[in-house]
């Protein structure tokens, strides 16, 4: 064998021999180091909560924690009740029944509060104090003369003044307008019934008057076929155990009751999405992970022909992980979701080092070397490759320090130190365990294992391949470069996933319901929030935020708690209204002609409002108004409704016919208005518990303002505009959405930065290792082509980068370089004309490491969670590409440069 062994190789060889023959000492050192690292492990705080991925020490994250922990409503579970096209009553009665079911004390472990509708008693008592003074004045004037004609006249005046031609005003009040027009629709039907001479019961009139004035408190969709129910759980998204157990339990109870009620239900809200994420991340993985582990063990046993091989590889591997956690404990004091996930990748990396050493050991033993010589040769021949490979991988990860997000920088520390820990553990423990095994075999009088003696996986095939590369290096080089370059042309089209909901399992109900809530209820379940201790600041923030084009509403205690000057003004108007309404007398009859004219006018107002709703895409309002006037979307008459029939019915109505109805109607209106005409200032203590819990901290000192967006804020383009606009008003807004920004930054900025930094530092390392710029450049070539091909493949197949699969970037750099480095070292050691041996021997180790790593990552592919699946595909593909370019291209380029072009690849030496 042509020897070209450096001092480093010789040192490593001596080390391997020492550690194997002095196995007791090496194992004792490992135990000592492990004992020290155990201290570090004890210092580690596992932080697998949602917050662990957010910037530590950030004021916004602290605020978010405060909000989640202080305001139970922030963790609300939203139950969407679907009446399956049934009547409104089916939906509202189902909401009532479910609310009652969930109030069962047996569920108090999970349910703090449940709300199906607004507190109507509070609105009935204080409704006018919550109404603008100008509106109270108008209401008073409208009721100065009670009766049907003045009612409809005043209504028409209001509509023409408030909404005519003004889509913006209509959009602001859409929900309120819908509720009022639905009540009006029923009132028109009642007037028609009364005009035909039939008696309308007083309680029905009272119900509809109350609904017209204050609504009925349910939150329904545009056609009243769906409604919402809110559960305040006893847990938050960070209480993983109760969340994962409690939500399915609630889901089961709700589902069973819903079946009895003839409705369907679905749960959403960020807490539910969090639970679904926790559950689906594991689904589909148990079987595949077990199979993958079994396959890896089988590959190792077959490759090394030792039943103890998994143990010899596995012990240092696990100890390396323990040391890594220890380092994390000493340096960072914590493990977050991402660094914890990385431990799986670390196992994949660490086992590669064992495979390289054991492959050479096996080859040396097969060639007849005794135990100590074989271990020494394994370290001599493969140690340098492993060392350089580990250092480059560690550097690739440490380069994550250039990342913008702290979580990525943390990953860099843990992953970089983890690779070094694995390297040291392998160099220290693996020869020690081999020595122990050899000692036990010798003690029992056993020779080297005869297991699968005839099997030499991969070596023959790869040796043949190496021979072919040696003969036709140009063909291999051209074909591989052309193939890599062709796919790489698409690389610039690879996209980054900006919507973290697209990383969840496809068809996940809690995610799909989020879009449905925006469409059906104009309500996004996720939003930014801000807290303040000052009511004055809360008011000014609300006003400014509601001006933003992306904000649907600033949701806070403010509408329930008028300012002092507003209270004074409203109290004055309320007292005036009370006097007017109390003193007004109902006329004895109804002027049917005037009433018909007002109903005609109302028809026109409703049609015009429907036109505005059409223009403004207010679908719910458009549908409601069209239904009342019997028009279709084109404005064609498709149905005759009470508003059409009433003017005709009034033509034949006797003068006194409607007087009875009018009296009951005016009486109900009078009673409700007088009940609402309470000039007493509203205090925090008067506000219903649900509202207080939602917006006021338990100590009453902190107020929450939710900035409800107009669209689904998980959509990246909308989120960017929404957050920018909100930041123009306040820099304190916080929310779960921050996590999305954090993850997007990881994928968009940090992946690229880290890759560039890693490539630069690795190039320097290669220069130091090989002391030859040509060798360093050539070594980078397969890696660059692997990158281009990976990105190109992702672009072609529509796989996007996300904050999880971006881990492929440093992994690919680390492992991709490793493969080429191993071939370099062996080729430089073996000398020219030996590429067949190099590919045959080193290629076998590379094949084994690639196969085990690919099996490990491919076990993510069956996951129903899209992020896991795409990570499985991307990481497996990255490893396969790195192997192909390293084994098919790199040896060909080495042969071409060294043997055909005569360019030196050996290290440069200083002349003396």
């Amino acid at each position, binding site marked *: 064998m042509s020897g070209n062994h450096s001092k480093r190789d010789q040192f490593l060889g001596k080390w391997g021999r020492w550690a194997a023959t002095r196995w007791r000492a090496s194992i004792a050192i490992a135990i000592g180091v492990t004992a020290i690292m155990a201290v570090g492990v004890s210092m580690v705080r596992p932080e697998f909560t949602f917050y662990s991925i957010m910037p530590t020490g950030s004021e916004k994250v602290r605020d978010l924690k405060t909000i989640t922990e202080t305001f139970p409503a922030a963790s609300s579970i939203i139950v969407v009740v679907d009446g399956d096209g049934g009547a409104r009553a089916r939906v509202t009665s189902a909401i009532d029944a479910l609310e009652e079911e969930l109030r069962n004390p047996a569920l108090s472990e999970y349910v703090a509060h449940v709300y199906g509708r607004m507190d109507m008693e509070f609105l009935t008592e204080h409704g006018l104090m919550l109404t603008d003074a100008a509106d109270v004045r108008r209401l008073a004037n409208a009721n100065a003369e009670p009766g049907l004609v003045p009612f409809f006249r005043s209504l028409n005046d209001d509509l*023409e003044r408030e909404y*005519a*031609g*003004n*889509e*913006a005003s209509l959009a602001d009040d859409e929900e309120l307008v819908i509720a009022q027009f639905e009540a009006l629709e029923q009132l028109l039907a009642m007037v028609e019934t009364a005009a035909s001479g039939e008696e309308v019961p007083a309680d029905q009139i009272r119900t509809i008057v109350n609904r017209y004035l204050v609504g009925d408190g349910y939150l329904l969709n545009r056609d009243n076929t769906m409604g919402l129910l809110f559960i305040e759980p006893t847990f938050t998204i960070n209480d993983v155990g109760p969340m994962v157990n409690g939500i399915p339990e609630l889901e089961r109870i709700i589902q069973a009751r819903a079946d009895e009620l003839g409705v369907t239900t679905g749960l959403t809200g960020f807490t539910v999405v969090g639970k679904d994420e926790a559950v689906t991340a594991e689904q589909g993985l148990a079987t595949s992970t077990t199979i993958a582990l079994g396959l890896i063990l089988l590959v190792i046993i077959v490759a090394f022909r030792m039943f103890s091989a998994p143990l010899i590889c596995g012990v240092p591997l696990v100890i390396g992980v323990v040391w890594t956690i220890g380092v994390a404990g000493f340096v960072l004091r914590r493990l977050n979701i991402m660094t914890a996930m990385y431990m799986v990748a670390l196992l994949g990396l660490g086992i590669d080092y064992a495979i390289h050493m054991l492959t050479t050991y096996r080859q040396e033993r097969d060639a007849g070397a005794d135990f100590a010589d074989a271990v020494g040769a394994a370290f001599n021949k493969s140690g340098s490759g492993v060392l350089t490979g580990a250092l480059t991988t560690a550097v690739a990860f440490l380069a994550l320090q250039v990342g913008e997000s702290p979580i990525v920088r943390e990953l860099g520390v843990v992953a970089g130190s983890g690779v070094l820990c694995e390297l040291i553990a392998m160099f220290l423990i693996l020869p020690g365990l081999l020595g122990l095994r050899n000692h036990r075999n010798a003690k029992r009088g056993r020779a080297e294992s005869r297991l699968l003696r005839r099997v030499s996986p991969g070596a023959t095939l790869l040796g043949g391949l190496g021979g072919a590369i040696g003969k036709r290096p140009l063909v291999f080089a051209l074909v591989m470069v052309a193939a890599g370059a062709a796919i790489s042309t698409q690389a610039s089209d690879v996209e980054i996933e900006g919507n973290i909901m697209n990383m969840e399992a496809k068809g996940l109900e809690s995610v799909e319901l989020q879009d449905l809530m925006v469409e059906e209820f104009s309500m996004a379940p996720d939003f930014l929030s801000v807290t303040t201790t000052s009511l004055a600041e809360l008011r000014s923030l609300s006003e400014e935020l509601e*001006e*933003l*084009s*992306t904000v649907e509403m600033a949701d806070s205690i403010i509408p329930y708690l008028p300012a002092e000057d507003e209270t004074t003004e409203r109290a004055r108007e309320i007292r005036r209204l009370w006097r007017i309404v109390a003193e007004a007398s109902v006329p004895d009859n109804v002027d049917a002609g005037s009433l018909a004219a007002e109903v005609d006018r109302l028809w*026109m107002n409703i*049609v*015009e409002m429907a*036109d505005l709703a*059409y*223009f*403004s*895409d207010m679908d719910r309002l458009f549908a409601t108004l069209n239904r009342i006037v019997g028009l279709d*979307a*084109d*404005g*064609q008459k498709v149905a005759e409704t009470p508003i059409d029939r009433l003017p005709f019915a009034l033509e034949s109505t006797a003068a006194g016919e409607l007087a009875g109805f009018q009296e009951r109607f005016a009486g109900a209106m009078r009673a409700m208005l007088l009940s609402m005409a309470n000039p007493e200032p509203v205090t925090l203590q008067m506000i219903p518990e649900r509202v207080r819990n939602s917006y006021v901290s338990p100590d009453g000192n902190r107020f929450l303002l939710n900035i409800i967006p*107009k*669209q689904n804020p998980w*959509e990246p*383009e*909308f989120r*960017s*505009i*929404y957050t*920018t*606009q909100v*930041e*123009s*008003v306040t820099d304190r807004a916080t929310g779960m959405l921050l996590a999305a920004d954090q993850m997007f930054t990881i994928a968009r900025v940090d992946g690229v930065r880290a890759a560039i930094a890693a490539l630069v530092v690795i190039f320097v390392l290669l220069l130091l290792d090989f002391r030859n710029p040509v060798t360093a450049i050539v070594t980078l070539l397969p890696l660059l082509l692997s990158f281009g091909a990976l990105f190109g493949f992702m672009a072609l197949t529509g796989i996007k980068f996300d904050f999880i699969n971006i881990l492929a970037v440093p992994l690919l750099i680390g492992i991709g370089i490793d493969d080429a480095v191993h071939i370099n070292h062996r080729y430089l050691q073996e000398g020219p004309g030996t590429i067949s041996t190099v590919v045959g021997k080193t290629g076998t180790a590379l094949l084994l490491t690639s196969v085990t790593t690919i099996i490990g990552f491919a076990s993510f592919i069956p996951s129903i969670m899209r992020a896991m699946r795409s990570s499985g595909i991307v990481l497996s593909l990255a490893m396969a590409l790195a192997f192909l370019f390293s084994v098919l291209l790199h040896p060909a380029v080495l042969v071409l440069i060294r043997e055909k072009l005569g360019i030196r690849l050996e290290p440069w030496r200083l002349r003396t």
Partner: protein
Amino acid sequence: MKTTVIRADPWLFLALLALLAVPAAAAEVDEIVRRAEEPFTLQRVYSVSEMSIYHGNQPAKTVEFESYSLTSGGVTRSLLVYTEPLRMRGTAYLTVGDDLWVRFGLTGRVRKLSSAARRGSAGGSDFSYEDLGEGSGGISESYRISLLEERASVDGRQCFEIELVPAPATDSTYDRLVAYITRDSYRYVEIHYYESGAHTKTLTLSDYREVGGMDYPFFMSMRTHASRTRTEIVAETVEPDSDAVRESMFTPEYLESL
């Protein structure tokens, strides 16, 4: 011999150069914008257009309208009458200066709208009346102009990048506009609209054709980024100095008579 070398700070040099260049640049940017806005200052224009609204890439609504505009005595008047779809047929908007009226097609009634309504969506589109109804002074009439970039690129075309900030006391929805005007032909190709610091809308202008001796954009597309909606206006006919435009058309009474 001892030699003292004075090294000029290149940044200081560039800063001095920029200071010297300010008056010239201001004059230049005014001229760039004046030339780009020539087609928008056409008088007595009658046009027929189709407006399509897209939600994402899905067409949601298409309307057709006739538009009449006239500037006299420093006041811009415009009348927009919807001809399609059926629901909107006969619905019309009249703008005289800052005043806005609407006529509803189905009821025939006319209402005067508040000035705040000018900020609202024009016919449910991504354009506001404010976007559509700029005065005869052109898009930049109410804005202070400055040149941001001499050689910006939009779809491979070399453009001037110009910032338009609302003039003091101007009531505008937008914080600022950033317009891209081609260097070779002085055409607006893109305008970015900013609200509360965020880039909320993008107007694209293309299909320039010669009308009345000037290049007029027959295609305009306004994209609202937050809602992922887009409105395209395709001009079918543009007639400057048209006989179809009469002074008497621009009154609420005329609206009622439609």
